[in-house]
């Protein structure tokens, strides 16, 4: 029997109530080794008698419950209230960010100017209310208001030496075209009033074109002005279905000032505006007086005598400029106060215009087409130089008679008295067909 088994047997005997001496007497050969071990076992036997008292148990359980409570409450707070608070915080932060984004976006769009990325959004947003109107008068008025804003943008861009803003020009023409589309549904007074506003757009654009420092910007402005005049004529005539001239210049690309001549079927109203004028004049005033008692013709300050040319179509641009240093700023500053361009009512009887077949003038110098933006200057006391840059006129040209028995209608806006260009050093050759 090994020592572990002898020891285990002695321990069992001690546990059963045997004495230490009895155990040692059973294994006398191992007594020396077993004695201290069994003595230690006797001392250890008292360990099993110990137990916690009820008070100690109760106190321990109170502590454990407090521990559980202290651990569960913060957990619940972080699990539910914490999540709710966190979600609420994210929601508030998101809402604030959204509001800031909306405010900044709206502000950026509202403050955008031609050339900005958001300017297209602003143009569309400002025209959108007009598209929702069904009443033709209100619709035309709203379209004209939007077009006025685009004209303001163009003027601001001009004054700040920015590009001519093709998008603003296109939006301006689009608004005027929308008015023309509504023209047949408008009453005559409303139609005339709308036409006057469109004509005012053209006049303003013409003034800007005259004082534009760059050629391509001037050409774009002049082309847009020409389109506006055509639209104004359509509005006045109540003919929304007449398409714009086929060869109209584009706005985005620098176009030649003189547009493609229109067909002979252009209405008399559109062809009655320019008249053959002396090629050059040294008169310092913009309007030239032909002769006393001669039939007068309405003219706007921006119109200049044309240099030996005939107005080939309604889109002819009176762009002979009279420039002075500082003139551009002066013109731009007073654009809003300018009277609207002379409007000729579409009454053929009172204004006998005539369409003539083109014939090469005999015994007269070849007609020289006025350049879109002539390099001619006509300041008082200065020499006037005309540099023709454009090809000859188209084969068919319409023009209004210079001298008629019936006086032309006056300007609706009460503009300056109509005058006719007086004789200049190179008067336009006389053509047949005049009554």
């Amino acid at each position: 029997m090994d020592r572990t088994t002898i020891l285990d047997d002695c321990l069992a005997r001690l546990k059963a109530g045997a004495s230490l001496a009895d155990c040692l007497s059973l294994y006398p050969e191992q007594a020396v080794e077993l004695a201290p071990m069994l003595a230690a076992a006797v001392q250890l036997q008292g360990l099993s008698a110990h137990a916690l008292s009820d008070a100690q148990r109760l106190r321990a359980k109170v502590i454990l419950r407090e521990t559980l409570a202290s651990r569960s409450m913060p957990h619940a707070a972080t699990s539910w209230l914490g999540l709710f608070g966190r979600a609420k915080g994210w929601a508030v932060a998101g809402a604030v960010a959204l509001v800031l984004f909306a405010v900044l976006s709206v502000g950026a769009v509202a403050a955008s100017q031609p050339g900005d990325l958001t300017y297209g959004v602003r143009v569309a947003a400002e025209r959108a209310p007009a598209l929702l109107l069904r009443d033709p008068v209100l619709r035309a008025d709203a379209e004209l208001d939007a077009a006025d804003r685009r004209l303001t943008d163009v003027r601001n861009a001009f004054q700040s030496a920015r590009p001519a803003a093709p998008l603003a020009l296109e939006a301006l023409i689009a608004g005027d075209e929308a008015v023309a589309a509504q023209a047949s549904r408008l009453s005559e007074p409303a139609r005339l009033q709308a036409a006057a506003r469109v004509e005012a757009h053209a006049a303003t654009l013409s003034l800007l074109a005259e004082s534009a420092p760059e050629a391509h910007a001037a050409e774009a402005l002049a082309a847009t002005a020409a389109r506006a005049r055509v639209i104004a004529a359509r509005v006045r005539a109540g003919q929304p279905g007449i398409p714009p001239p086929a060869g109209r210049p584009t706005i985005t690309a620098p176009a030649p000032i003189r547009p493609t001549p229109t067909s002979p079927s252009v209405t008399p109203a559109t062809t009655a505006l320019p008249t053959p004028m002396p090629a050059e004049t040294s008169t310092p005033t913009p309007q030239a007086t032909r002769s006393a008692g001669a039939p007068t013709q309405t003219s706007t300050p921006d119109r200049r005598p044309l240099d030996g040319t005939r107005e080939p179509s309604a889109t002819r641009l009176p762009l002979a400029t009279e420039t002075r240093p500082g003139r551009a700023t002066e013109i731009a500053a007073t654009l809003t106060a300018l009277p609207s361009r002379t409007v000729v009512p579409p009454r053929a009887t009172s204004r006998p215009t005539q369409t003539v077949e083109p014939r090469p003038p005999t015994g007269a110098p070849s007609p020289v087409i006025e350049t879109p933006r002539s390099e001619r200057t006509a300041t008082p006391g200065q020499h006037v130089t005309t540099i023709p840059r454009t090809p000859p006129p188209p084969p068919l040209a319409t023009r209004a008679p210079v001298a008629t028995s019936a006086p032309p209608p006056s300007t609706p806006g009460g503009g300056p008295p109509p005058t006719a260009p007086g004789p200049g050093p190179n008067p336009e050759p006389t053509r047949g067909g005049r009554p």
Partner: protein
Amino acid sequence: MAMQPPITDEQVTALVSRCQQGEASATEALYDLYADRLYRYLRARIGDADLAADLTTDVFVRMIGHIGGFRLNRDRPAASFSAWLYRIAANLAADQHRGRRRIEQVSLDEDLPVPAHNLGPHAMAEHRETAAQLVSAIDALTEEQRLVIIGKFAEDMSNTEVASWLGKTEGAVKALQHRALGALGRLLSASEK
């Protein structure tokens, strides 16, 4: 001598699961099952009855704090959970012993095993000294030896029960018991001299 019924694997599995969910009643049930056993172990190692009771409570407070990360051994649920609790108690006792050594306070109170008959003052003093020597001797054992001594003498377990509790064979338990008692005998004899 209070002989407690053995703790089954089913009991431990159910109570630990509920305790991990924060159920107070399950925590108290586990306390009722293991408190006296841990108290005896701690008292054998510490010697001070009140301190052993406080440390027993601390064992369960630590259990609450770490029960969420505890994983039962599915093969030996009761043994694994019991071993975990005794490991906590051993760490607390070790911390207590380190603190005692720092402040050089050795408790030699009257709570160590006392013979049934009344002792005189001289005999009582000898008894306290013997009890302190026994605590020091137990503290000098290895943890495996201590657990065998606790199982055999504090819990009145059989060799089979101790072997199952500690996850060892009966032969290994007998060998551990022999080495533990031999060490205790030598330590106690040396201290008496």
